[in-house]
């Protein structure tokens, strides 16, 4: 730069962000900033940028690139406040001397809002049917949208009247195969009436380090009386009278699959049930059966025509 230009007063600088900060970010979220400085067609490489929160400098960055009359930092990350609410940062180019030229301070105010993380639930390993009045367990997992650790947080399970029937504390290790699903097995009081039950899990998320919104989920099962009889169900293919293995069998709420001999066993209390049999590639079939004693039932399946299933 010439001596004449060195003698001239430096132009006023202006600051901007390569990408604006989203108006709302989750608490504690990583926020990426990249600061651009323009206004002086000079290379300010090596210049210092400060990020100020309140009175405190929370981050610094260096101008590393100069092109098209604009200087810029590399992208760098700040952490959003961990409390919910409005926040602001000041991006500051402090007064400094670069290449023998003195530049005055320039600032840019950045403001945004933090919001709690969301949570969501999974409920699995729900046995069905469940015997009336017999305790049983389900597995519950909770996930933070920020993949935050949720170990130690409480979940509760309510029956269809809203009564709490069990509580659990999420473990410290995520469910295998998951990203960050914190889980626990919860023992529950047995249902007090027969039939389809719709219960719920609540995750208040009030005992998690960062602010989170709570969540809930529904799960269902069927409550039954204790079994009385053993039913043997044999499934054969109608045209060839051959056993059909790996066939799903449902006797009312009771479930089983056939073995290589086409045989499945189910224990159930007396009553009249719909016996439904399912195997892909066969016509779905069902019929009502009355169980008053140990019984053997044979079921014939009809294979679907090839022209309905062929894909070539």
């Amino acid at each position, binding site marked *: 730069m010439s001596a004449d230009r060195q003698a001239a007063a430096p132009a006023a600088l202006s600051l901007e962000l390569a990408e604006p900060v989203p108006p709302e970010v989750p608490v504690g979220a990583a926020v990426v900033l990249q600061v651009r400085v323009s206004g002086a067609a000079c290379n300010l490489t090596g210049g210092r940028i400060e990020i100020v929160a309140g009175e405190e400098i929370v981050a610094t960055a260096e101008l590393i690139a100069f092109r098209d009359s604009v200087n810029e930092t590399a992208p760098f990350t700040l952490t959003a406040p961990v409390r919910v609410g409005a926040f602001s940062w000041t991006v500051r180019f402090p007064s400094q001397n670069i290449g023998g030229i003195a530049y005055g301070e320039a600032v840019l105010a950045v403001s945004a809002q933090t919001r709690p993380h*969301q949570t*969501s*639930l*999974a*409920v*699995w*390993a*729900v046995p*069905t049917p469940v015997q009336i009045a017999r305790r049983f367990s389900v597995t519950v*997992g909770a*996930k933070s*949208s920020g993949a935050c650790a949720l170990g130690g947080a409480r979940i509760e399970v309510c029956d269809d009247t809203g009564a709490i029937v069990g509580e659990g504390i999420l473990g410290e290790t995520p*469910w295998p*195969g*998951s*990203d*960050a*699903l914190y889980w626990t097995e919860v023992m529950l009081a047995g249902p007090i009436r027969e039939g*389809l039950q*719709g219960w719920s899990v609540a995750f208040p998320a009030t005992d998690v380090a960062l602010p989170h919104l709570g*969540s809930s*989920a*529904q*799960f*269902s*099962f*069927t409550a039954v009386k204790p079994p009385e009889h053993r039913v043997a169900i044999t499934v054969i293919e109608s045209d060839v009278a051959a056993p059909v293995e790996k066939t*799903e069998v*449902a006797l*009312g*709420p009771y*479930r089983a699959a056939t073995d290589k001999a086409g045989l499945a066993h189910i224990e159930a209390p007396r009553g009249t049930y*719909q016996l*439904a049999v*399912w*195997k*892909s590639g066969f016509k*779905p079939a*069902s019929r009502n059966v009355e169980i008053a004693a140990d019984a053997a039932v044979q079921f014939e399946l009809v294979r*679907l*025509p*090839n*022209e*309905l*299933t*062929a*894909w*070539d």
Partner: protein
Amino acid sequence: MSKGPTESHPGKDTEDRPGSAIDRRSFLASGAAAVAIADAPAAQAAEAAAWDRETDVVVIGAGAGGLVAAIAAREKGASVLIVEKNFDIGGRAMMSFGGLYIGGGNRLQKAKGVEDSPDREFADWSRPEKPMGRFSDRALVRTWADNTLELFDWLEKNGIKWDSYRGVPDRLDRNRTRLNVVRWPNEPTTPARGSGFVRPLEKTARQMGIEILLQQQMTKIHRESPLAGRVTGIATVEVDDWFKPKTRTMNIKARKGVIIATGGSAGNPVFRTMFDVRLTEEYQAENSEWTERTGDGEIAAMEIGAALGATACQTTQDDNLITKGRMGKKSNGAITELYPTSPHFFRARALGLVVKDYQNVILVKENGLRFYDETATTRDYEYYAAALAWTGDPRKFNGGGPIWAIFDADAVAREEWDVKPPHVDPNGYFFTADTIEELAAKIVNEYQWRPMSGAALRKSVERYNSFVDAGVDADFKKPRPMHKIARPPFYAAWHTPALHDSYTGVRINTSAQVIDLHGKVIPGLYACGDSAGGFGQHGICRAATFGRIAGFHAAAQAS
């Protein structure tokens, strides 16, 4: 001298002038001078370039129909050049199961004691009680039936090895004529049996001196004047591995004929929506990683006056024109399968997952809602009607948007799926999450026009799970819902219907000559396979039948 493009090398047979290929733009600039001094027909003709190559018969497409047509024409003494857009031969047939409806009483049928005849074949495939048979041009059906015995022997002579008859009724075939070929040994691209049809024919073609120009896309069919006179040749452009045009163009003169064998139009949303407006861009053409099937042959023919034939065959809702397909990959046709080591795999990006039992998934639309009994068979057109129904996109009223299969870790175990690449494509077509809401939020796809509601998807899953307990699907009557979607992780796999075949194309007569809008033959132009309309029969035999007829007929023309 023809009124077609200037013959810069008259009399030179199939002579290549690679250095002479000129850029179309520069030709048009030089051609403008000629226009100034020419009369009107000559001015129209002058739009084409000088011939870079010359041969008797040009075949567009090296699939089942094209290879057969080329061999047939060469057998009758014609010089033949094939142009193929892909960097390998085979077309749609390469990825097929390699089955032909071919019978009529051949030696294999006789050995099995199966009685068959051309009359029986004709009766089967023109059955009025079946939509698949009622709309075909019966003259073409008759031609197919009358040719199958000869074609059987002819294909054998040219290298095809027969496996066996399928032995069960198939489409309109009453358990007589569906014959599979033997897969080409050590085919490196695909385990599909279709290689057993196209590789032997490729070998024969090359042995006969037929040149196959790969990565050349036909861009125009030249005719003496735009809507009159003989077809004189084609223009091509070199394309890259993604079928994108490069700069080098070529004009190829065809002294006797041009045969369109471009594989149909299933991959062209503009073309296919002429017949069914619902089939918008989100529906992928099966095997498009191998062959795009953009209707380029049909369009080029229509630009010089060709009509379409028996278009009702395209909308019979009887055959599997649409399939449920595989899932977890974009080009999700049901029988799509490439080896991950195949040179073509970069276009496929994944193998896809096959659902053996639809009790293991629910299918939801872009809004997270179920829409039909998932166990519907692949030919249940009420399923497709529901899948293709509008869900609220204010900018797009046709088509139904993506369909997603939603399932859990237990389903993965039951189906023994491998849910990692190369089996699935995590780049927009397969997603994994810890919870249902998170899964919905992760679904980002080029055809998903709005974010899927996590609450809606959760409600769908919870309601479905309650149906499993109740034993009844109160919404869509799925037979005895068997499995809940409960155990994490959860999965969403692209399971939008895929398009299988084209059953209409340019109108042909029984000599495979293309017919114009006035019912007249376009001299020198032929079509076969999925690019030809008139006979709604799936597969290779239709292509081979009319490819062979086209080759013979073209070779017999005067130069």
